[in-house]
């Protein structure tokens, strides 16, 4: 498990109010109860804050799974 995925897991626990969520790179919105479009925005806001960069408006939707989110975070942190 990458450090990013680790940190992301605590963000998910917070946003979805569920400490039992276990993330893998393959996790999608369908796997997590309550991951609707509004919750997705809450998640993105919190991801931006937690990792210290703003998510662009063009990036807020369209990620296909947690792996894509992790890659985006790593890319932005590396940039």
């Amino acid at each position, binding site marked *: 498990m990458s450090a990013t995925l680790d940190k992301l897991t605590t963000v998910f626990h*917070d946003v979805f*109010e569920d400490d039992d969520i276990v993330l893998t790179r393959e996790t999608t919105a369908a796997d997590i109860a309550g991951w609707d479009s509004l919750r997705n925005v*809450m998640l*993105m*806001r919190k991801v931006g804050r937690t990792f210290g960069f703003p998510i662009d*408006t063009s990036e807020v939707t369209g990620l296909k799974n947690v792996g894509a989110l992790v890659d985006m975070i790593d890319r932005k942190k590396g940039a």
Partner: protein
Amino acid sequence: MHDAIPQARALRKAGDAQGATALLADVVRRGSLDALDYDSVGNLLAGMVEKGQVAAPKLRVRLIGQWTTSFLMPVLTAVTWGRRQPAVVTEGSYDQVWQDLLTMQPGDADVIVLLAWSQRLLGDPTRAPTARMADELEFWRMCWARVAELGARLIMVGPDALHDGALGAFLGGGPGGERGLIRAANQALRDALPPGAYFVDLESLSAGIGRKRFYEARGWHWTHQPLTDEALVELAGALQAGLRAVTTGPKKVLVLDLDNTLWGGVVGETGPLGVALGETPDGEAFRAFQAWCKALTQRGVLLAVASKNEVDDARGPFLQNPAMVLGLDDIAAFEASWEPKGHTIARMAEQLSLGLDSFVFVDDNPAEREQVRQALPDVEVVDIPTDCAGYIDAVEAGRWFEAVALTAEDAARAAQYQQERKRRDLQTSASTLDDYLASLDMVGDVRAVDEADLPRVVQLIAKTNQWNLTTRRHGPDFVGGVSRDPRGVALTLRMADKFGDHGLVAVVLGTPTDEHTLHLDTWLMSCRVIARTAEGFFFRAIVEAARARGYRRLLGEYLPTKKNPQVADLYDNLGFVVQERTVERTTWVVELDALALPTTFVQPPGSNG
């Protein structure tokens, strides 16, 4: 993330939901949370309530917005817990204001918060601005009427816009410009607001931290929620102050320390003329703070002093230092001693006949603040900064004294408490209580509630806790309804005595239960006239009004709260007979022709003693 959040999660998991809520409420109360953490705290609190792990708060608040309120909801939840008025906050769907109001049932919410946005006001440039304004106003008036129908209190948040628009800053602020239109709409809504409602103007609220930190366009495009995290906390603070204003009413007493709070230095060391006041930069700041406090007394907030000092030292600057803005006459209760301030403030509360939750405490010494915080959890404690120039901002930030309306009585309140002090002095000299009461030359004037009285009557209903039989927080519609009903009894009592005029001090609202029975739905009296036989005088007028309307009996009712035990026996004392007694409610009846009228030392107007 604040440490308290994982700690609270752990406590909750370990089955200690009480401990978790207490911990979270405390970090919010102390203002130690980062803006980003409020939603986690609010979601945790709401989650524990929803799962029944802690008792649901009584206050139910509904957010209904033309912008998405899902982000505001947990933040407001957190703030209400931190401000010791916890609420269950729910929301309607985005921009479905009218539909949501229609699907609600009476009693679903105690307070409804309507949040306007500018998508229609600015949305259709083909229609004249005046026509768009008229549409807005008509729409919101319709919504307000529905809120009243639902029996809820109203908080209205006016519309705002993210950008200056095509006309730019200057022309855009003029007539027909976008900002000009927004300002005009806010003013028009404010002016049309029903009495008893609270209004939040986002333009002035956002100015506090700056519009660029308050709004973000991306939020609007993502979810139709234009506020930043920091702005959500600001707005939640303003809404919480509004909730307090429309439910319990504002805080009533500001308790002040002296040394390094009202003046610079320690008077016991420097003498009354040696303290920093005026002239130096810090002296200027202390004087400004005093002037700010003094202005509060003119709007009905009481000032009190709690100082660890010898009495003579504490009073010295008030009596001798010409640079003082505050005089002893501005102080309703003055306590200088070496006792813990928790004791001092508790004694003041008793002296002023006010609940501890009416008090706000300001002291430069963090140790004193902590002592009061722990000894008296109901007292709000302000963390003022070490720089005296920041005192006013720090106290204003709590919005403790937000009110829905100011009445002439508010302005005269400080003087009334001064008179009350003189009255207490007299009381100790009068030989018996009866002599004392007779010596007051009390005059009472009972009148039917009329339109002009409504704001004061509703205000008294909203804030009276102690001498209040049922504590039903009726709004202007209910009161107006009873007063217009030919079978209803809606009376007020005004009192004066030789020390001054108390104004409107008691209200009764009676409604028929059947042809012969008048139910006293609401009966309350301001603490200023408690223990003066005013209730006996008022009761005589109630009996007279009931007889005049052809009633044969009165039905009295008592709903116990933490604050009103002093009226638990009122109906027994007035000769009523218990009809039904449960933990939550006691009812009594009395036949009007079998009634002995109580004695009173209050005279009707125009009589000569």
